[in-house]
């Protein structure tokens, strides 16, 4: 504890504060711009960190990470375009709320939830890192598989309208994800002789295509209206007040879920948001409002994705194992300075290990202050004419993909998915369900097959291992609960059912 306090002391110098503020602000900005993100920016800054002091370099990069996950909610809410992959769930409810004229409220809910999620997860990071990291390691392949299976059950929930069409859309997502290298056998699947597809349809081009480019296409057809009609009133941003307290259960739960999923190596902040959203919906009193501008949905998604950032730092600092893609690059930054990530970091470089933890908290406060303080300016985003904003968005998507993957082929993939997304909207296929299938199916498949290798082809450990069994039971509960609830309601309100049948 005293080392942590000492670390806070060293953070309040001119340079540490400068880098934390710069990093957080840069993070919020790249996070808010669809196409650009933390992974890209941190990777691009890696060569510069050669010339920086190791502590300053690391707190700079961590601050970018904290800022970017929060920035994504701005474009998700105002433009229906997730600024970062972790904000995909925020588009589901943020944009409908904005269309209702509650953009200010949606933004402030998101900003506040991001902040609180960051706070709660930070406490877990600072206090419980070593035991949490150890416990996370006990997750074997079947535990991961079951966890992802639970999240996949959300497909029916996000497929607005026909559940059947939702499942078809998810099937499309599964199909798209199978293209490319098969991690469990090393062979290339379904590339049909196209060498460029050896990397598969990657996250960034696919997501930017179906969410951003398809939205650009939709906006192009409808240039008469500005980006969105709703005006953000500045005072809306501060009108939350005590009303936020009723979300406290949701906030607490989503923070724990987000932190925990962040801790699990190889599962990112978008999955954290997906799972927290799904649990929030299934425990909500008004599950039918989800996807139509539910406050609870925004709160769950934004709390969880910010919580996952601190969660992902847990295995990085405690064990030297990256919790996410961004953390893998942070490990590279540590290695560049010849620092060994892992338990030794706390004893050998306490100023660095505790400095990172301290910076994560300060960056969270800076993010909160910056986003609230500039919310008036942010809100004006939706008054910029489309002729200025849409080309810029497309341009940054190009730049983001090119600088991340180093090739133009992935931009073709993005444009193709823009057309696919447009056709899916036309066909009534939910893009949310598609993306869920696309993100979750590769994890599910590879963990299942790893488990089959580990347990000599047996599925039994799924029910004999306690953690795995817990998830299985939880999944069944999620599946059955809506039916039970509906039954109960029918008993309570027999009039509703007759009107249902007539329509």
């Amino acid at each position: 504890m005293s080392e942590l306090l000492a670390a806070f002391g060293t953070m309040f110098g001119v340079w540490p504060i400068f880098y934390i503020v710069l990093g957080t602000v840069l993070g919020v900005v790249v996070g808010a711009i669809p196409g650009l993100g933390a992974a890209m920016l941190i990777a691009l800054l890696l060569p510069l960190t050669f010339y920086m002091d190791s502590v300053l370099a690391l707190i700079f990069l961590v601050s970018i990470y904290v800022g970017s996950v929060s920035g994504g909610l701005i474009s998700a809410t105002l433009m229906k375009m997730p600024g970062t992959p972790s904000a995909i769930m925020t588009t589901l409810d943020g944009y409908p709320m904005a269309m209702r004229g509650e953009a200010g409220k949606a933004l402030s809910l998101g900003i506040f939830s991001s902040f609180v999620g960051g706070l709660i997860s930070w406490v877990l990071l600072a206090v419980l890192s070593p035991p949490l990291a150890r416990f996370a390691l006990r997750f074997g392949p079947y535990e991961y598989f079951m966890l992802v299976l639970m999240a996949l059950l959300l497909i029916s929930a996000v497929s607005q309208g026909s559940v059947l069409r939702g499942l078809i859309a998810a099937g499309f997502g599964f199909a798209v994800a199978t293209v490319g290298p098969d991690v469990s056998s090393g062979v290339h699947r379904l590339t049909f002789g196209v060498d460029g597809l050896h990397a598969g349809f990657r996250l960034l081009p696919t997501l930017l295509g179906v969410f951003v480019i398809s939205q650009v296409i939709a906006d192009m057809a409808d240039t008469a209206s500005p980006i969105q009609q709703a005006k953000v009133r500045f005072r809306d941003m501060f009108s939350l007040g005590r009303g936020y307290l009723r979300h406290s259960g949701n906030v607490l739960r989503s923070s724990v879920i987000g932190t925990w999923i962040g801790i699990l190596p190889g599962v990112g902040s978008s999955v954290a948001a997906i799972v927290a959203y799904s649990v929030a919906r299934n425990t909500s009193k008004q599950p039918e409002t989800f996807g139509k501008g539910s406050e609870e949905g925004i709160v769950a998604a934004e709390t969880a994705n910010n919580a996952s950032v601190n969660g992902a730092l847990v295995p990085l600092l405690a064990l030297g194992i990256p919790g996410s893609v961004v953390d893998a690059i942070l490990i590279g930054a540590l290695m560049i300075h010849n620092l060994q990530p892992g338990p030794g970091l706390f004893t050998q470089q306490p100023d660095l290990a505790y400095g990172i933890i301290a910076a994560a908290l300060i960056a969270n406060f800076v993010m909160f202050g910056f986003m609230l303080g500039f919310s008036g300016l942010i809100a004006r985003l939706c008054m910029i004419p489309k002729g200025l904003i849409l080309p810029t968005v497309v341009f940054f998507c190009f730049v983001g993909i090119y600088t991340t993957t180093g090739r133009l082929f992935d931009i073709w993939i993005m444009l193709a998915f823009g057309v696919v997304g447009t056709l899916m909207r036309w066909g009534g296929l939910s893009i949310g369900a598609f993306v869920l299938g696309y993100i979750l199916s590769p994890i599910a498949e590879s963990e299942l097959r790893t488990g089959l290798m580990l347990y000599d082809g047996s599925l039994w450990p799924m029910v004999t291992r306690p953690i795995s069994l817990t998830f299985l039971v939880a999944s069944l509960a999620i599946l059955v609960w809506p039916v039970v609830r509906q039954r109960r309601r029918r008993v309570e309100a027999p009039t509703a059912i007759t009107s249902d049948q007539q329509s």
Partner: protein
Amino acid sequence: MRRLFEVRDIVVPLVAVGLAALLALGAAQLPPARFEPMGPAGLPYGVALALLMLSVLDVVSTLLKRRRSRAVPVAAPQSAPHAVGRTLLGLAVIVAYLLILQSGWVGFVTASAVFLTLLGAVLSNRLRGEIFVLVAVAFAVSMGTGLLLTRVLVVVLPGNGALF
């Protein structure tokens, strides 16, 4: 007069079946399972089967719905023809930009500034005073990004690698 089917109610299951066929075709070329029972082909076959069943169910549900509801289906909002034209023009500008970057005819900043101006012009309703703002923003954004990528960060620009 009422159409027999909504076009999309035919297209969606058809596309699903086509995709299922493609998956099965690709899976058939994969090597057999070697290290665990599922193998690389397991998931593609599974997804193909699921899509096939889902599309059959989808057709059935469309038929059932048709029989049940007597009401005329709500027509999808028709976009005005000039909107479709504008969308296609916009897409053409985007594709042209990518092609020019790929060919390396002109530098990154030039190509980007022209792209931003052209797409902006396509998407603007009135183009009198705005055009100057448009050109200025286009040049500032592309110049700023180009300088940032080459001077601050070390990135080789797409195309011919040159700024202009």
